[in-house]
């Protein structure tokens, strides 16, 4: 095996990007620790959601509120965006020009925005069916868990726009590279949280 030695989670840039690699390793590990603490928050909100499953207070339940088709589309969008971010990471590692990198990042950004739009449309439909957060404990728990993931995706999109700006202004210096690697970790991590959401909340609820 002649693979690059792995120094941190996510794609490692390897010897061709040796500038500031030690700092990068530390910063990305720090971000990884943050990601794991975020994981605990999501895990506890999942526990809260399961505890509140029975608390519909006579209001609409999962079967009335959730639609499988739009959840399926959201899942595919997010999964594809994870893949396109992977392609962007490869472009960062192996290409000198920024063009393929920027194209893949913009595709990822558009997919992220499409995901948020679909999710908002979903929430709007839920509101229309009387599924407002104040209706019951079950719906409150739903709206503390799923939109928190949506907010993370929104934050990641804003971060991505900021990084695109930095690429335009500074080019690919080592700070921008570190930022891209950390955002990649966040993006892939959000996809993992979404797997838990669609399995437990949506598919579990629709069973």
């Amino acid at each position, binding site marked *: 095996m*002649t*693979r*690059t*030695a*792995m*120094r941190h*989670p*996510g*794609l*490692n840039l*390897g010897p*061709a990007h040796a500038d500031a690699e030690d700092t990068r390793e530390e910063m990305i*590990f720090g971000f*990884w*620790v943050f990601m*794991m*603490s975020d*994981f*605990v928050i999501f*895990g*506890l909100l*999942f*526990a*809260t959601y*399961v*505890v509140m*499953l*029975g*608390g519909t207070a006579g209001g609409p339940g999962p079967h009335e509120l959730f639609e*499988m088709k739009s959840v*399926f589309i959201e*899942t*595919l969008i997010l*999964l*594809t965006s*994870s*893949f396109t971010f*992977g*392609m962007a990471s*490869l472009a960062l*590692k*192996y*290409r*000198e*020009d920024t*063009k393929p990198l920027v194209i893949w990042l913009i595709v990822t950004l558009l997919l992220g925005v499409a995901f948020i739009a679909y999710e908002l449309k979903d929430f709007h439909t839920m509101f229309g069916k009387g599924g407002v957060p104040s209706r019951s404990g079950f719906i409150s728990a739903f709206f503390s868990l799923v939109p928190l993931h949506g907010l993370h995706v929104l934050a990641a999109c804003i971060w991505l726009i900021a990084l695109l700006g930095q690429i335009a202004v500074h080019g690919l210096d080592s700070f921008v590279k570190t930022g891209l690697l950390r955002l990649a*970790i966040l993006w*892939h*991590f959000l*996809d*993992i949280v979404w*797997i*838990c959401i*669609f*399995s*437990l909340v949506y*598919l*579990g609820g*629709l*069973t």
Partner: protein
Amino acid sequence: MSRRALSKKRELSDEEAKELVAERRGYVWGLLAALVLTLIPFGLVAYAEIEPLTLYGSIAACAIVQIVVHFRFFLHITLARNKREDLQLILFTLLILTIMGGGTLWILFNLYYRMMPGMIP
């Protein structure tokens, strides 16, 4: 100007070229595996007529395998020695989650069972 310079691709050594192929293949395999593991549970819920308990089990199994796939192919968490820290952190987080999440479920469902049977879904 050579073709390579025109495409502005960084001059890759043979080793790097091999690594690129391997890494790209990793992402493609990750995408395909995740796609299959997404289609199975959605298909089961939409079309299959099986008992709820078996269904919950299959959904959970697909989700866990897909999470491992994401960690392995997208986040590059492997069992290689120098990456042990990252993996250890995941395992520690899982331990914390088991204690806190599992404890929450245990206590509250016990409470429901004793005081509010209507809350048990």
